């Protein structure tokens, strides 16, 4: 019973070549007026004793057909999707089509970072001229002509003017035009006659100045350690090493603990555990006198750092000249 029907039907299903044809077949077989549906409806017309058996056989047949259709459907869907995928294929392992975005120069990137740190601490950014007179660059900063300290500031001259050797003249200009309290940093290009792997004749400096009542070395220590931790990492510490600058007294070299060995000493820090990052000190009373501040009432600290040096330490750059060569492969790292 129904053997032929079953055989024919399954053959038809197997022969279906696309989803549309399969769907038509499904309707023809199992739809409201489908062949199988009609057969099921016809059971009622059979003699009572044949009905259970016929019902069972028909039900099994119906299920088998349904399964066959489902299976065929899956197979056809897979084929369709494969076809579509062929048609739509884009090799996503190819490089993307980029609209290239440029890069910040590492010096500017570090400078921005430094600015943000000090601005968050309440400092204001002030800029000034690169072409200076020697009063603002030296004399006002307690460095008279023939002072041996001028040796470390070998300057470029333009007739009676010079290219500033540090951004300290900006501090002088600010103090001459404003009253304390003052909290400023002055970033900018400075010039010294020196050119090798660790010196450029032009480099970028950030100097800071804080003048108020009762400013002490303790305040300087706090501010600069905060700075070092923000720029190099929270676990870093600083130490003050006595030094000399004509415009500060006492003066310090500020070292930061080595990030590689954490202060134990390793090759990176020359086995000292410390790396020199900036110079600092308490503003010399003569500097205050030169700008008309009363050194009895006001005290303050000042500091200065080379952005190139900080950047070299931060990114482990060996040759300072890389900063001004502007090799695109170098710039693309930042």
């Amino acid at each position, binding site marked *: 019973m129904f053997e032929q029907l079953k055989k024919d039907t399954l053959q038809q299903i197997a022969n279906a070549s696309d989803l549309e044809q399969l769907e038509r077949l499904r309707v023809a077989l199992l739809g409201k007026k489908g062949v199988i549906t009609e057969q099921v409806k016809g059971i009622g017309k059979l003699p009572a004793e044949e009905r259970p058996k016929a019902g069972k056989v028909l039900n099994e047949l119906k299920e088998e057909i349904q399964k066959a259709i489902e299976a065929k459907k899956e197979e056809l869907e897979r084929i369709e999707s494969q076809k579509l995928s062929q048609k739509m294929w884009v090799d996503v392992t190819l490089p993307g089509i980029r609209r290239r975005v440029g*890069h910040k120069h590492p010096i500017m990137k570090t400078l921005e970072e430094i600015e943000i740190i000090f601005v968050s601490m309440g400092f204001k950014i002030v800029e000034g001229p690169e072409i200076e007179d020697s009063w603002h660059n030296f004399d006002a900063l307690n460095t008279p002509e023939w002072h041996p300290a001028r040796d470390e500031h070998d300057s470029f001259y333009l007739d009676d003017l010079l290219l500033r050797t540090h951004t300290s003249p900006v501090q002088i200009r600010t103090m001459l035009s404003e009253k304390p309290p003052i909290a400023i940093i002055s970033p900018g290009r400075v010039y010294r006659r020196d050119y090798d792997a660790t010196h450029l004749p032009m480099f970028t400096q950030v100097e800071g100045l804080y003048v108020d009542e009762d400013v002490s070395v303790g305040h300087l220590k706090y501010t600069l350690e905060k700075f070092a931790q923000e720029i190099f990492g929270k676990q870093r510490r600083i130490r003050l090493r006595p030094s000399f600058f004509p415009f500060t007294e006492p003066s310090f070299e500020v070292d930061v603990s080595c990030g590689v060995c954490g202060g134990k000493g390793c090759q990176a820090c020359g086995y000292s555990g410390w790396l020199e990052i900036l110079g600092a000190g308490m503003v010399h009373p003569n500097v205050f006198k030169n700008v008309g501040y009363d050194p009895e009432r006001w005290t303050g600290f000042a500091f200065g750092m080379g952005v190139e040096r900080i950047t070299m330490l931060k990114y482990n750059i060996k040759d300072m000249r890389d900063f001004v060569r502007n090799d695109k492969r170098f710039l693309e790292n930042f």
Partner: protein
Amino acid sequence: MLVPMEWLKEYVQTKWSDEEIANRLTMAGVSVKNIIMPPIKGKILSAIVKKVYKHPHSDKLHVCELFDGTGLYRTVTSDMNVNEGSVVAVAMPGTVLVNGSVVESVSIKGVLSEVMMCSLQELGLETKSEHVYQIEEDIPLGEDLIRYWKLDDKTMEVEITPNRPDCLGIIGVARELATLCDGTLQQPDMIFDAADNHVEDFVKVTIEDLDGCPRYCAGFMESVEIRPSPIWLRRRLINAGIRPINNVVDISNYVMLETGHPVHIFDYSKVIDGHIIVRKAIKGEEVKLLDEKTYALNGIETLIADKEKILAVGGIMGSSQSGVSDLTKDIILEVAYFNPVRIRRSSKALNIKSDASYRFERGVDPNDALMVMKRLVNLIEKIAYGKATQGFVDVYPRKITSKYVTLRKSRLSKVLGVTVEDETVQKILSSLGMKVEDMQDRWHVEIPTFRPDVSIEEDLIEEIGRIHGYEKITQQIPKVSASGKGWSDLNTFRKTIRQLLIGSGFDETVSLSFASSKVVKQSMNVEPLRLKNPMTEDMDCLRPSLVFGLIDSLSHNAKRQIKDVKFFEIAKVYNLENRTPVEREKIGVIMTGQLNEEDYTDHRFVSMLNLKGVLDELSHHLSVDLQVDPAQIDWLTPGRSGYVQLENETVGIMGMLNSKFNQIYDIKGEIYYMELDLEKIFTKSKTVKELKEISSFPAVRRDISLLIPVGFSSKQILSFFEKSNEYVEKVGVSDVYKGKDIPQDMVSVTFYVIYRASDRSLTDDEVNAVFEGTVSDIEKQFNVKRRFM
């Protein structure tokens, strides 16, 4: 300065290790950069040459038998001067010599040479030796000579800041160490015997230039024996970086290194009448100095002379004739004090930097002259067997006295931010050689003249701080209160531009502000601002334009096959304006090669209009109306150049660099460049834009292609469209075409206009009428034709 460790320890006893000493000194401001360790190690013994005989197989070699008190050794030598009975330094196998070589037992032409007899060179006591060193000192056989002569002594490389001339002598460094380790400073031996005759019988001193030389002490010694210095003296000098010459010269250097006070020794026979005249140089006078160079003097130098000739440029260098030679018998010893500023000026003017000038320009102690003189005599008597006379000539009419500085206790704690015990303060200052008087709320401190750097209260605060230790100061949070914006508006404006350009694909560069005046003139035909003292010829002026740095970078990359470059730099340029140097901040933008190098579907190269696009993008984002007026500009390509205008002011320049740049910098391909004045644009930029209401009614767009003749500015047509009707929302260009169906001297430009009303939908008919009318007007007014009639 180089400080041999054992020399330093002669003046102060400490339990600290060498590393500890270095660290403590560094943390007190005497910065030790390095501890130098000589490579010498192993066993070098004193031994006597028992037998010398000819090498059986060579005429040029001797075989020696050596005895060190316990054992016999054989060695082969090429030095024929070694005699039986000589005492020599013998290096045992395995010993590492100063040059790093290792002594081995070797067979030389069939004779086993077990050990090696050392020369002074091999011991590090001479630059070049000819012979095996024959020991003159009385040393027992078998003595360990590395230890005996301290050949393995370490040396500290110390960086002395310019304010501390006292530390340019080993005693000065020892004083610091004694203060730090709570030790006592030992003074060197200054005892000597003087003969009956008096110094004034031999030497006379006249100071004519008292400003240059406030003090001149002279001593006289007879019958010195000029010979090489003993080993210990040589070693100390060599370790301190000075080449030994002969005993008298070496002692003068030794005393300078020890005390920090440079001294000079003249051959008495070269000084006419033994009369030293200290005078100011006459401009143009010539003198040949010890370095065998002849110098023309500048009239500012202080000279040590006799009545006929110059003996020395005081405090800087002796003359080639007056110094100690092998024939010298009697000598005049000079210990003087020279004016630091005069020395510095003279040394700069002559371009001579000597160990003496270095110290005098920083300021030596004017009041230690007699002490230094005595030490000098003591050593010359001991080592060169000279005989001293009674007394010294000491011309010092205006004594330089000690300063007194008051230190308030309250000020000390206010500046340091920590309270230091009174007792500690007093101990620190006294140990540094100061006399301290406690006056309740302050100290009255007498500053020794060897510390010219201490002259105000803050200087004393530093002394206490650095010895007490800055690590003891606790951190305090400053009460800084923000006063307004951290960044100025100009600063923020600059940052915006940098971000825009970076976003547009440009890499930010930083380049040196210098340029070559030759290149500037050649390429731009302007006279740049020249440096008076440039470092090199190609950096002899300040750049008048950012193009020089940018194209340098371009060329650096091109030489490395990197040809697609879009760079910018924001920095200053420098020019003479009304004879005054003026610096102006500019934005320089350069581009060459492929437009979109990372887009492999787009192989276009950068063009003039891409450069203009960068300008338009800036205009748009900065809310300024930057326009370009075509113009012929010397250093740009004709037909592709113009001035950038902003509200009737020229704020920049743009175009394609002319081929001179390609030649000078050896770069192929078109290079586009733009330079804008940052501040001028900033002044006119609007921080807040006026907003137009956005209409929700539909837009109607019309396009028209017009044939534009070469040299015509399409800007006029765009403006005409813009002003043509109240419903014009946007005007633009949708295509530029130049091809075979377009006349040679024409270009087809397709303009589009978008019309939109804010209160209704426009009808097609209405727009057609308006657009047609406008196009006809344009045709008439500008005499241009439609491409499709």
